[in-house]
């Protein structure tokens, strides 16, 4: 699950960059879509943090 959380965070970050540079669907620069993607990436990192702490215990 830790790997899945990290992979999803990376995917959402890439999607955010693609939205901001106008290379994702729908065509054109979508600042708000990018921001939501970053927020989702951050949530995935929080999920990763919870999984890591659980593993350490």
């Amino acid at each position: 699950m830790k790997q899945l959380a990290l992979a999803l965070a990376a995917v959402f970050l890439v999607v955010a960059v693609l939205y901001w540079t106008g290379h994702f669907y729908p065509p054109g620069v979508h600042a708000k879509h990018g921001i939501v993607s970053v927020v989702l990436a951050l949530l995935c990192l929080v999920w990763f943090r919870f999984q890591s702490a659980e593993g350490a215990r």
Partner: protein
Amino acid sequence: MSFAQAMLLAVLQGVSELFPISSLGHTVLVPALLRWDIDEGSESFLAFVVVLHFGTAVALIVFYRDTWLALGRSFARSIARGRFSDDPQERVAWLLVAGTIPVAILGVLLQSAVKALFASPIPVSLFLAANGALMLFGERLRRREHAVAGRPYRTLASLTPRDGALVGLAQSLALLPGISRSGSAIVAGLLRGLHHDDAARYSFLLATPVIFAAAVLEIPTLFAPDARAALLQSAGGCVVAGVTAYASVAFLTRWFRSNDLGPFAWYCLGAGILSFILFVTKVIA
């Protein structure tokens, strides 16, 4: 748009954003009913709407400032610890996260398309009536569960993340102009077993980041050349919307301690049907 019209719209926004009667619906219907000649697609009007939302969001943050501080502290502690605890504030903070995700995703993906399709008086009238019917339906189910079957109410902290996400999903119905954000979220909260005051509190807390983010993301419209001309109206509107929103949330938190959605539901049903008849029969063009 005159200064008086701007201030009236600001009062309307401050009240209708938090009362379960749909602010977007009223922003479409009232100017049409009063036959105001306002270009709602102009840069200056869009900028004006942004500052009204900003004023409303600030009022909500100020009203719930102690709650937000406590929630923020519990949320940060939870992340630092890397696990959940039984702290009720922490549970509510995570419920807010769970409830905000669906509305953020659906809002960003669908808002423009839905608004373009339905933001005209006749569909808005129908959605406003549907909003009233939805609240009456929710109240009826709640009475059956609690008043008739005697099931006890749940506390906000006892909701699961799934419940929180469902309330957030219900809040997304407010993308349809005429459906109220707070109304749909309160009904969803009631159907998950909350009392009115907890359902309303969760609805207002859930609305705060959404309204605030929506306003902040539209800030660039304030710098459009056309928008700068209406700076005085925007500043006045922001203050008026903030003050009325603060008074509205103060009133509603008291109201929902011992009252229900009934009066708001009947108002929406009546206003929606009446507006629909006026627009369809072309009494108002």
